[in-house]
């Protein structure tokens, strides 16, 4: 009787507003956070931090950013990587050019600049609807990459156009080690997920979904389409921008504009599709899938006798499986892994009874 729900009544509306209504869920989250913050830094090794956990967290955040725009507000975007790039380069320049600016403040400002750029490219959404909108976001994708490569000011005139992370220091504490970078990433990502969760449950979140589900009806009941859509672009850009800054600073430590190309945008989109459009949890599931699946496949192949399948074919295979999974999810489970997870949980709530 793990999920004993009986007796947990909401007696005040405030109870319903909490992060999770059920005590078990709240306890689970608290335990998970305690584990992630308290235990993982001592359990993990360099490989886990640098190659799995940090990219997983950053990609989850990027997924959240796109999910706000596509999953909640229903505006398809292929420009996620552009907004990540803006966030990364803006944070870098704030850190570089404003002496004594705290690291977290540059992340925040990086996010704000990305939000403004996203807002700009979101403007056509007022007139261009649905599928046609990908033109605007693709324009963002190509334009931003071009501008960041073209004007070397953005990369402090580095001949290779590469930016390098500053010292990761907050209030004198050094977060430069793999475990430190993990903790820093985790902290930022956790805070932003709290924010994102609040957003989608607020009036704005409802307005986004209303615009997504039927924008004519949304306009008729007085939802301001202009403001709602633009806020979706801006907030999506904000989350993506901070994800980009984390990508550059805590994950890779260095990044060039090419690192945020169209393939990165597709990757973020796949996270959202596989994880679940319009789901907060789905972003974690999708990101975990994207990070772990290739490793799983290549490690499984490592178990086979050497020479049976070479690394190149494996990658081709991975591409095929990936594409097939995208299609399978869209056909069979458009709500993604998050929905599978919910089913599992519903079963757990009934356990040990069947019904």
């Amino acid at each position: 009787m793990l999920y004993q729900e009986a007796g947990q009544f909401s007696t005040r509306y405030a109870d319903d507003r909490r992060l999770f209504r059920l005590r078990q869920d709240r306890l689970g989250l608290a335990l998970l956070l305690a584990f992630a913050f308290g235990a993982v830094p001592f359990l993990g090794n360099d490989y886990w931090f640098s190659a799995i956990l940090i990219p997983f967290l950053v990609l989850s955040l990027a997924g959240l950013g796109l999910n706000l725009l596509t999953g909640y507000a229903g505006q398809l975007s292929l420009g996620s990587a552009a907004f990540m790039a803006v966030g990364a380069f803006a944070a870098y320049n704030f850190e570089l050019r404003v002496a004594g600016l705290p690291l977290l403040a540059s992340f925040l400002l990086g996010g704000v600049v990305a939000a403004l750029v996203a807002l700009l490219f979101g403007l056509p959404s007022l007139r261009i609807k649905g599928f046609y909108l990908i033109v605007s976001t693709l324009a963002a994708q190509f334009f931003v990459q071009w501008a960041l490569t073209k004007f070397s000011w953005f990369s402090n005139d580095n001949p290779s156009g590469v930016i390098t992370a500053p010292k990761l220091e907050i209030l004198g504490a050094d977060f430069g080690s793999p475990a430190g970078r993990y903790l820093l990433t985790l902290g930022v990502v956790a805070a932003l997920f709290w924010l994102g969760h609040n957003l989608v449950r607020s009036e704005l979140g409802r307005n986004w979904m209303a615009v997504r589900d039927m924008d004519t009806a949304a306009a008729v009941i007085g939802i301001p389409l202009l403001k709602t859509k633009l806020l979706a672009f801006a907030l999506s850009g904000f989350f993506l921008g901070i994800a980009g800054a984390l990508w550059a600073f805590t994950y890779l430590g260095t990044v060039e504009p090419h690192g945020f190309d169209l393939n990165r945008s597709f990757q973020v989109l796949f996270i959202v599709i596989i994880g679940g459009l319009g789901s907060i949890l789905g972003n974690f599931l999708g990101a975990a899938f994207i990070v772990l699946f290739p490793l799983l496949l290549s490690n499984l192949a490592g178990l086979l006798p050497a020479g049976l399948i070479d690394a190149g074919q494996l990658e081709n295979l991975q591409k095929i499986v990936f594409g097939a999974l995208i299609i399978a999810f869209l056909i069979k489970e458009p709500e993604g892994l998050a929905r599978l997870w919910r089913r599992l949980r519903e079963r757990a709530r009934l356990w040990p009874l069947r019904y």
Partner: protein
Amino acid sequence: MSHPPSSPLLELQNISLSFKGVKAITDLSFAVAPGEICALIGPNGAGKSSLLNIINGVYRPQSGLIRFDRVEQRSMRPHAAAELGIARTFQNIALFKGMSVLDNVLTGRNLKRRSSWIEQALRVGRAAGEDDRQRAAAERVIEFLRIQPWRDAIVGRLPYGLQKRVELARALAAEPRLLLLDEPMAGMNAEEKAEMSRFIVEVNREYGTTVVLIEHDIGVVMGISDHVVVLDYGRKIGDGPPGEVRRDPEVIAAYLGTRH
């Protein structure tokens, strides 16, 4: 059962609307008094839905005037109409299918919101108290329409009749002065129709909400409305209390199809 003497809440004057040269509505005028239930009837394609779309600004007529609460305009805008207190339901249910019943009803109250999205996202300032007030108001509507058991259900998975009721709940949540209902009873059985009629009459009596509705079931129309407007091919062919209209030869002709 006659027109109330006060000045009309809504008045349309010489409205014409066409799509790509095809006339949908021609030189149409009528008025709706405050507090009445006004029914628009007429055969399919008579321009009834287009008329509702003009009243709340989804379509903009090529000519004519719209006067709502003594303010005169050439056309409405959906958002402005909502702010003036015009709410509506749609012929082919226009609910937000991916959201829960409660969330759908809450969207109806979005214009009553005062706290900013930043306050709500960070959960500071006015947001929390307002959340409770909004929720309480939404719950009142949910209770009124007796849809409590489905409060947390996703709307898209509910049966048709319930969806119609949820849509009405969303419109009512806005506390409108004028309620536009586009075939609220379409596809319902007799029992459901009776229930829906009761809701409409109750809304009208209890909150004094003015109602304009489109309905094909003449029995229902005659039963609940104070005022009937008959359309045919985009023209008005009848306008008056239900008893009068029912006897109008032109209306009978249009309905029996003897005109051609």
